[in-house]
């Protein structure tokens, strides 16, 4: 049993050692969990890319993004060509990514609903969301003794009426892809 446990640990070690989260340059790992390619280049270029990207993700992201990112800029590299080039590239790349957010689920592409803002394959459906109650509703309502969600529920779905982590809801969906 102990041998099996040891073998399992060794297997786990080899598996995770190749994981992207544990490899690579730690200075740019903020992009690890995001679907934005980590561009090759000089350290200053990468730093600039990271700063530019972070800036626009803060600006145009919702409060999740604003909690994670912010205005970053290295004033000592004002006239460093690599840094400035990377900064502009990062800004533009992430700007395009974030304004094109709400990428729909893969299953919706396979089975287009034909409603909402669907065009053709249903790839751009931005309206057909699951209206599952949010996980915080019950907590807040019991805590404050009232319908907190309703207080801030003037435009469409309320702040607290949606699941903060999960926008899907269709069957057969894996992480919404």
């Amino acid at each position, binding site marked *: 049993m102990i041998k099996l446990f040891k073998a399992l640990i060794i297997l786990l070690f080899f598996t995770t050692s190749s994981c992207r989260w544990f490899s690579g340059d730690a200075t740019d790992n903020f992009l690890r969990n995001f679907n934005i390619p980590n561009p090759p280049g000089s350290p200053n270029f990468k730093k600039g890319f990271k700063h530019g990207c972070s800036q626009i993700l803060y600006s145009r992201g919702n409060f999740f993004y604003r909690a994670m990112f912010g205005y970053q*800029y290295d004033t000592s590299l004002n006239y460093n060509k690599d840094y400035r080039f990377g900064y502009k590239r990062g800004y533009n790349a992430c700007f395009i990514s974030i304004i094109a957010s709400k990428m729909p689920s893969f299953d919706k592409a396979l089975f287009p609903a034909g409603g909402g803002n669907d065009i053709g394959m249903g790839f751009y459906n931005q309206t057909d969301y699951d209206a599952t109650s949010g996980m915080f509703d019950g907590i807040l309502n019991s805590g404050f003794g009232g319908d907190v969600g309703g207080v801030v529920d003037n435009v469409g779905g309320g702040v607290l009426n949606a699941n903060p982590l999960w*926008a899907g809801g269709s069957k057969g969906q894996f992480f919404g892809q």
Partner: protein
Amino acid sequence: MKFAKIRIIFAAISIASCSTNPNWWKPNGYLFTMMPKGGSPGYNLGWRHGCQSGLGTQFAGAIGMTFYTWSRDVDIVSSKPNIEAVKDRYKKELKDINWNDPKDIKQNFSDYNLVFFDAYNFCRQTALGTLRATVGAPPVPGETRYDPGSANIGDIWKVGGAYDSRIGSTGYW
């Protein structure tokens, strides 16, 4: 008595930031605290002017335009800068520039120009981002005017609006 002291200390700490950020009371005024550290006087002035200009555009809506306006200084950005006018206008902001050193002046003016549109873009995009996450895209001329009564300040924390970042909604997660 003990509480009075605590209250005074608390108040002092609370208003301490007001002196460093004169825009703290304005909408989106907190953005000015995000100015990067270590810049030259010209850089800092350019950043502030850029941010003010960005917040004074229609992207920030009528409220933003009420509190801010276009602030780019023509005497600095001109190909023939009016150094005397700039020196008089920003006695406090540019006090650390060596006005007897043309190289230092040129460097600071160059910093001003370099950062102006960086800050302009950052602040206007942040104001627009907040608006889009709350009331949707601001109306353009010809469209129905924005009705503040149809929105709520709590919508800033709406997760299902623009830039939805939940699993299954975007390309990020």
